[in-house]
């Protein structure tokens, strides 16, 4: 049977949606970034923000707050949010699981474990080693987090081919609890100073990255983005499953390795420098798909990067509003937004049909 009426042409409509969505998200990112730059515990008029951005050498206190505190923080939020968003798209496509991301599947727990073991190791080696760790926080904790994330990623990839989506999710959560249990035991032996190093890292934030760490953070993330771009086309074919991917000429094993490597390159530096940041990678791909009306990876990557950056900057803005007495915590703000989205996904997403 053939229908006489031709189908709606997606070829014209889709790029328009994509472009419009990108533009809107881009504008929102700029707006959120400007808001974050101008408002905080100290309010800076928007005019001064713009003037300060144009004149990096200005020496007023507000100019220094802008340059030394807010710009690095907002910049880190943009990079980290984009990286986590892209990583979420990769993981959801790789595992064909709508609630897959670095946090829900336990990659961040692996990072936590890596950092905890690093700290505990230093604590056993003695106070001097711990002091060394504080000074070299960038390098040693980064290595610990990156190794932890990578090991967890390989484990999840291995498991992901053997169990269903929901099982994998529960396994990921259990992995998180296990890691936190081990962390708690390890920290008991790491003592007060070690515990401080760990809990300082463990409270996710975009504010701790210092300029000297930027090249490493941005460099690795950019490598991850490039690799993600290279994986985009073959990953499309994986959306239909392994056999179809193979029939469409994809080297599935190589693709899995590459996509996972890209995910690690994106998640590990962010986790190492910012601590565990939850929910962004989980919900951003859904936003991107809703905007683009497609699951094709290519158009999703920039959209997810923009949406991730937006969510990260907006959450960071809320955290740094001048709250009375207490500070909010980044992951608490993200959870307030993210958890209801995840519940809705689990309940209503057609993709979860038959997997529940």
């Amino acid at each position, binding site marked *: *049977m*053939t*229908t006489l*009426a*031709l*189908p*709606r*042409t*997606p*070829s014209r409509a*889709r790029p328009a949606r994509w472009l419009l969505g990108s533009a809107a998200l881009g504008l929102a990112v700029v707006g959120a970034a400007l808001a974050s730059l101008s408002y905080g515990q100290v309010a800076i008029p928007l005019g001064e923000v713009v003037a300060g951005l144009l004149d990096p050498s200005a020496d007023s206190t507000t100019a220094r707050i802008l340059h030394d505190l807010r710009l690095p923080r907002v910049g880190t939020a943009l990079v980290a949010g984009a990286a986590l968003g892209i990583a979420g798209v990769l993981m*959801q*496509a790789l595992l*064909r*699981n*709508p609630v897959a991301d670095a946090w829900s599947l336990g990659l961040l727990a692996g990072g936590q474990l890596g950092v905890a073991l690093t700290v505990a190791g230093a604590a056993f080696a003695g106070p001097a080693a711990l002091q060394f760790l504080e000074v070299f926080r960038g390098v040693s904790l980064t290595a610990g987090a990156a190794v932890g994330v990578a090991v967890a990623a390989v484990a999840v990839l291995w498991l992901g081919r053997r169990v269903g989506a929901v099982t994998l999710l529960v396994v990921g959560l259990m992995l998180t609890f296990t890691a936190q249990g081990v962390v708690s035991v390890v920290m008991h032996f790491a003592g007060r100073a070690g515990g401080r190093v760990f809990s300082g890292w463990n409270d996710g934030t975009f504010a701790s990255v210092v300029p000297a760490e930027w090249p490493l953070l941005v460099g690795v993330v950019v490598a991850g983005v490039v690799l993600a771009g*290279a994986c*985009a*086309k073959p990953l*499309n*074919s994986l*959306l*239909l*499953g392994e*056999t*179809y991917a*193979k*029939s*469409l*000429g*994809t*080297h599935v094993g190589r693709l899995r390795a590459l996509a996972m490597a890209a995910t690690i390159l994106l998640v590990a530096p962010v986790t190492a420098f910012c601590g565990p940041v939850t929910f962004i990678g989980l919900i951003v*791909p*859904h936003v991107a*798909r*809703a905007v683009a*009306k*497609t*699951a*094709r990876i*290519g158009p999703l990557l920039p959209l997810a990067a923009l949406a991730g950056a937006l969510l990260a900057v907006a959450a960071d803005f809320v955290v740094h509003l001048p709250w009375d007495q207490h500070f909010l915590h980044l992951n608490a703000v993200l959870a307030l937004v993210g958890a209801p989205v995840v519940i809705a996904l689990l309940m209503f*997403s*057609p*993709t979860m*049909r*038959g997997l529940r």
Partner: protein
Amino acid sequence: MTTPRSPLTLDGLTVGYGQTPVLAGLDARVEPGGFVCVLGRNGSGKSTLLRTVAGLQLALAGEVRLGDDAVGPMPPAERARRIAVVLTEQAHSPGLMADDVVGLGRQPFTGWRGRLSAEDHAHIREAFALAGAAPFAGRLFDDLSDGERQRVMIARAVAQRPGLMVLDEITAFLDLPGRVEVMALLRRHARETGTVVLLSSHDLDLSLKLADAVWLLSGGALRVGPPDALIADGDVGRAFDTADVTFSAERGQFELRGGPLSSPAPHQP
């Protein structure tokens, strides 16, 4: 763009898993535009044969040729441009649209970014229409019924413009009119484009009515021939008869031993 019309040849083909052959020494040939149904009981090796023909698993011996080219050693990218596959297994992925699925049929022909050209889009539109999947364009793949999804998957295979289309048990999720429509459209597509269509099915009656040729798998052997000849020779009966059921060559349908089935057969003459 059309794929050159190529005949499909099995040459002493042995298929199986590991070192265990399931079917050995198969020889067959399908001319371009041929619509072939692969029949056999469960466990007769249909899927293994089809996977091997499609190049998804290696032959234990012998070879499959499409035109002059052996499928086994063919580079994956080239194989993807020449052979399309549709399986029983249901695909699902978060946010996957019907358009994405059909678009994937063009992936082997796109550049590294996977960007679709106007020509690709034309092929996609055509494939949607041909497979009767046009109403599902713009819809979430996971929201479609099983039958609707199968049509979209066929549209994807059509969009691929292959020289050989391999379809394994794809009619399992369709109702009877749906099965007739799908098999008819595949046969028409084979005739019009010269694509070789190889389709396995449990739908004995329908396959025997529509196929140009039947590959009948029974007892580790392959019999090839026009449906009428295989029925007349009793090959079909030998392949499918059980203690209780027998295939009537005269009526072209199954009967209980000792009399025709009491319930209405799917295809009364």
